[in-house]
């Protein structure tokens, strides 16, 4: 089964402002496990790309917060996840775009392998 | 959000983003009239649009205030009934709304209406029945009255038929 995981940054990842509970290594492992991986954040896209480059993670996408529907149209997957920390800016638009939404603690607890 | 009877098929044809309220979701917040604005809201409940007017200056002002912005009088302010006609002066499309009750309906139109009785007087409108981000600027509109979450009616505006 092919799955795509979209990560919010601020409040979700350890590099966020504020820091979230998901580590960069967590993202790296999902990528290594064969998931389609990227970020969907209010940070400038160039800043998202620079962050991933700094960590040596070759993400599949880096988009603005409202672009999950575009991501879904660009990538074929059996299931699409968005992990974020906001009801209004993550959960609602993710579900509207046809993504399954996970809070960071749910993402940590989920058996991804 | 918009409390109007519109053919659902027509709505779908307009724009997928526009949807009728269902089960009260997306309804405007209720209004608790206060001393300053009570006549405005009471008139709305009777499907009448009234605007504060300084009888000394013969000048309308909105939002209501304790004194006339022109002459400073606090004793010459009265409420004057409007024709309920206006035109669309300007608009924006709200994608990130601070009001929780309206967030389910984002994005939505907010138009600035200028009254025919005095184009200097503006009112906001969601323009029920008008597709999102497809606003006929300059079009004639007429007032309708819409119930909010606590039953208080508020003035809304609809494009007059034939204006699109």
């Amino acid at each position, binding site marked *: 089964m092919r799955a795509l995981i979209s990560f919010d940054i601020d409040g979700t990842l350890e590099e966020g402002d504020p820091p979230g509970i998901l580590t960069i290594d967590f993202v790296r492992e999902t990528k290594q496990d064969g998931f389609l991986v990227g970020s969907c954040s209010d940070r400038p896209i160039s800043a998202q790309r620079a962050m991933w480059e700094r960590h040596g993670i070759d993400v599949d996408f880096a988009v603005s917060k409202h672009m999950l529907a575009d991501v879904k149209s660009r990538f074929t997957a059996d299931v699409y996840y968005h992990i974020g920390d906001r009801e209004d800016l993550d959960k609602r638009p993710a579900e509207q775009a046809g993504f399954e939404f996970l809070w960071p603690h749910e993402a940590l607890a989920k058996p991804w392998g | 959000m918009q409390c109007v009877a519109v053919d659902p098929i027509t709505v779908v044809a307009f724009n997928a983003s526009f949807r009728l309220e269902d089960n009260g979701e997306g309804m405007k917040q209720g209004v*608790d009239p206060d001393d300053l*604005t009570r006549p405005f809201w009471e008139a709305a409940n009777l499907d009448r649009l009234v605007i504060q007017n300084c009888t000394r200056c013969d000048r309308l002002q909105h*939002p209501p205030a304790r004194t006339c*912005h022109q002459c400073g009088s606090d004793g010459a302010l009265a409420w004057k009934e409007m024709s309920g006609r206006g035109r669309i002066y300007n608009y*924006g499309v*709200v*994608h990130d709304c*601070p009001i929780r009750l309206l967030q389910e309906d984002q994005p939505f139109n907010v138009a600035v209406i200028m009254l025919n009785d005095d184009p*200097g007087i503006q009112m*906001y409108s969601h323009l029920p029945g008008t597709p999102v981000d497809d606003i006929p600027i300059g079009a004639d509109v007429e007032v309708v009255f819409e119930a909010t979450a606590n039953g208080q009616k508020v003035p809304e505006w609809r494009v007059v038929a034939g204006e699109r």
Partner: protein
Amino acid sequence: MARCGGGAVSTSPAPASVYRVKEGLGLWEHRGKVAAVGIGHSPTFRRWDGTPENSVGGISLEALRRAIDDAGVNPADVDGLVMDPSTTTGAFWPRGKPLPWDSINAYNRTDDPLDGITGLSADWILANSAELTGIEFTSYGVGCMSNAICVAAQAIGDGRAHTCLVLKSWHNLEGRYYQGGANAGNAIPGSSAIRSLWGTPACFGTAVQFAEYCRKYGKTHDMMAPFIENSRQNGLKFPEGYWAQHRPEEITPEDYEAARWIAKPANLFDNDLPIMVSAAYLFTTADRARHLKQQPVYILNHATSRTRPRSLTPTLDEVEADTARTARKIYEGAGITANDLSFENMYDGFALFHQFHIEGLGYRGLKFGEALDFYQTDISISGPNPVSPSGGNIGCGRSRFWMHTDCIQQIQQRAGARQVTGVKPEIAVSGGPMPVGGNYMVWSATPGS
């Protein structure tokens, strides 16, 4: 009650007569007789971390002490304090949430336990500034640093203070901007409902003015991209700013055009970021300034717009009429023309109204409708036409004072990597916030002739 010269007086908002609102007042009577001689900034934070030292009171004390140190004056010689008691970015202490007693009790408190946490009185500052033993004059310039500057400049000119601190601070708490309180409820008071029932975010009025501007002059939103890019680049050269300190991210034109809408045509990057920060300036008389550590930066004028829009939101016609009126007041009181401006630092805390400010000023000969084309030319700090060299709120986070700090630092030639190089920094204008309703000042390397 504030401690003033050993006694106690209450601090009040400055009377309306302090502000130079009308046209035709002629040269400011204190033109060139008041000078800025010290700057102090606190660190920036996105939100309060709950520690006493980073509370709005704590960072304010830090800014004040840095300004005094920067000027090289004895704290006991400071006899005036002008500040804004309001510090909210839109965040208020949640009803029912336990008060932060550890932080409250870390300082000498006033009758209001949240003084120093979600507001700031002169009483609180003086109760926690043992070194300020000579304060004889206190006043509130309510609104912004721009208000406080007008009040302080006038007070020194009028002889009510000799060496005066000017302070503005901001607090920010958890939660999204303006999403709590009444906005989360099911009903609101009738007076608020007239405006807010339709769910317009703070930038809505500016967004629709910009929409009208684009229709009238045939411009498009993407033409703002060079302004945004330039502002952030300048802001990243402002070491006191939020983005430089915490997230050194540029905004490219591609980033700007990909940003989500808040109220179309205003997008995310047209809005500034609420932060915690404090800044203080030290003003004194021109005579005294000449003997202090820093190069004096003279105030040639302060001017104010108190124009009330006719209805819910100013029309483009109202905006243009008022920015032109404001410019006439600025130039008249300072005894200068647009041609004398080395650069401009007008407010940008919605980016989409900066062009209204500079078109009203006639900066570099701009007429209404021309600024977005101007943005496509060289507006950098190294060119002949610097626009917002401070980076403003877009480049540094919301404070509404970067523009003033930058004017002072540029003229003193200590703006560092941000120093303008394409022009000689001699006379500059700053101020805001709104194009209709704001306070403005003219800064100069010389007291004028």
